[in-house]
């Protein structure tokens, strides 16, 4: 057996071990969601379903709706701003232009949440770059509040989401068979027509997966709403943190974590369904 499958057992054992540890961590979240909260104590009581009924309150519906709206807006604007960059990244004629674009577009992914969020605090704050610039241009007299607003949170979230969106869109654009575009142009289509009726439809699967990945990813954003929202914009992650570390209600924090997990898995499942249908349509038409 080992002769036919070299390294099978040696490579399987560590993978299974780590998978089991992760499963155990996730199981603990599930277990806590069914345990009774003892106010003023980190210890938990016996089995209960009360944590799940507690979520049935308007405030949590609003938080979920807010999370949903902010994630949707982020995915939409990230798509809008990423498409031109991806297009340039794939189609630029000069090699150095493509290299510069890829480094500028991808690096923000690797500077980390805290650095990026802090940078946006400097840009969006009441004495920040945007307000100072607008004041010195005489457009406004007093600082416009951008920090601690939904607009500010979305401005920062879109920039975080763009590298991932750009990678997914660029992959889709680079896979286009350019003969399709050439054929359309030869038949007399203007560049605009070619772009809207050939290029965009051919990259629809990439657009869809980029949108949903960014949507699901933004649903679990934490530091941006925490620092730029400053407690005035609450996403589900911030409520989990508040419940866990301010109220020490670990069971309810566990329930909310599970809700976030289900929302993320649900949106990805939806994407699979939509892309499957899209590919089916494209194959038959």
């Amino acid at each position: 057996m080992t002769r036919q499958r070299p390294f099978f057992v040696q490579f399987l054992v560590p993978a299974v071990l780590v998978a089991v540890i992760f499963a155990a961590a996730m199981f603990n979240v599930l277990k806590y969601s069914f345990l009774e909260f003892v106010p003023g104590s980190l210890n938990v009581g016996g089995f209960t379903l009360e944590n799940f009924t507690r979520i049935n309150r308007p405030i949590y519906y609003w938080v979920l709706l807010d999370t949903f709206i902010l994630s949707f807006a982020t995915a939409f604007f990230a798509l809008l701003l990423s498409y031109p960059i991806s297009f340039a990244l794939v189609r630029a004629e000069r090699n150095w232009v493509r290299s510069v674009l890829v480094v500028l577009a991808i690096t923000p992914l690797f500077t980390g949440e805290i650095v990026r969020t802090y940078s946006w605090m400097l840009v969006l704050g009441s004495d920040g770059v945007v307000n100072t610039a607008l004041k010195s241009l005489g457009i406004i007299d007093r600082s416009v509040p951008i920090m601690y607003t939904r607009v500010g949170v979305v401005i920062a979230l879109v920039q975080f989401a763009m590298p991932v969106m750009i990678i997914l869109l660029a992959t889709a654009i680079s896979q286009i068979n350019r003969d399709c575009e050439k054929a359309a142009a030869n038949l007399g289509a203007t560049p605009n027509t070619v772009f809207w009726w050939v290029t965009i439809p051919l990259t629809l699967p990439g657009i869809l997966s980029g949108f949903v990945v960014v949507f699901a990813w933004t649903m679990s954003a934490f530091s941006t709403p925490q620092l730029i929202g400053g407690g005035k914009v609450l996403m589900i992650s911030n409520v989990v943190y508040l419940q866990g570390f301010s109220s020490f209600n670990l069971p309810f924090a566990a329930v909310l974590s599970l809700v976030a997990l289900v929302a993320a898995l649900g949106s990805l499942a939806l994407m699979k369904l939509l892309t499957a249908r899209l590919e089916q349509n494209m194959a038959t038409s």
Partner: protein
Amino acid sequence: MSKGTNMRSTLFWTAVVAILVYMTLPAVVVVATSFNPTEVMAFPPNGFSLRWYEKALTYPDFQVAFKNSLIVMGVSSTLAMLLGSSFAYLIFHYNFRGRGLLEAALWSPLIVPHFTTGFGFLLLGSHLNLTQGFAVIVMAHLLLVTPFVTRAVFVSLSNVDPNYARAAANLGATPTRVMVKITVPLILPGMIGGWLIASILSLTEFTASLYVTASRTQTLPVAMYNYIREYADPTISAISALLILSTTAIMIIANHFLGLRRILGIDNG
């Protein structure tokens, strides 16, 4: 080129530049403010001073946190390289019962929100009496960064001609010798690329770390978060500038030697 094409192309590149300014403006502002001589975070800076770099590098909390981060990063990214590479080899070569389940478990940290993962490890750690020690932090980071190594090595394995390994085996090389002399050298770029990405992601990971670290074991991003909540001076700008410059340098080097566009699968030429 007609006039219309020229204008459209000018318009397009203006939009591209404007969007890139939006993407890079925060990084530029953070680097610029780090040179301010006073506590005012003016942009452009009021002068030139390195005092915040001195403060950042000598502030005890950051020194401890930086050391913690290096330990966590070194251990978790190296383990992730070994685990991710062997797992990629496993799923590339073998079909076995329960493979789907194993893959689901090891890819899922990409989808599970980081705060859920962190919360799970917090609970698991307290269950095992390992509360907020390095073992739990390394474990959480290992799971979060391994998928990136697995993907990079899997791509490398797909690009390797299997005939090299077959030829070596036919000539009498043992499986170990084939692995060491043929397979590993051929997938080494993927392994190194994956290790590099894993290191950067571990160094900058914040949300899950916030749950699993204590003040004694806090990593650099957690220490920075705690500082931001209490003080407003350019110290964080200085640390951020150091992190931005080092990650950008790593990305430029990685792009030069490994080809980012090829790793990401967006090269058409």
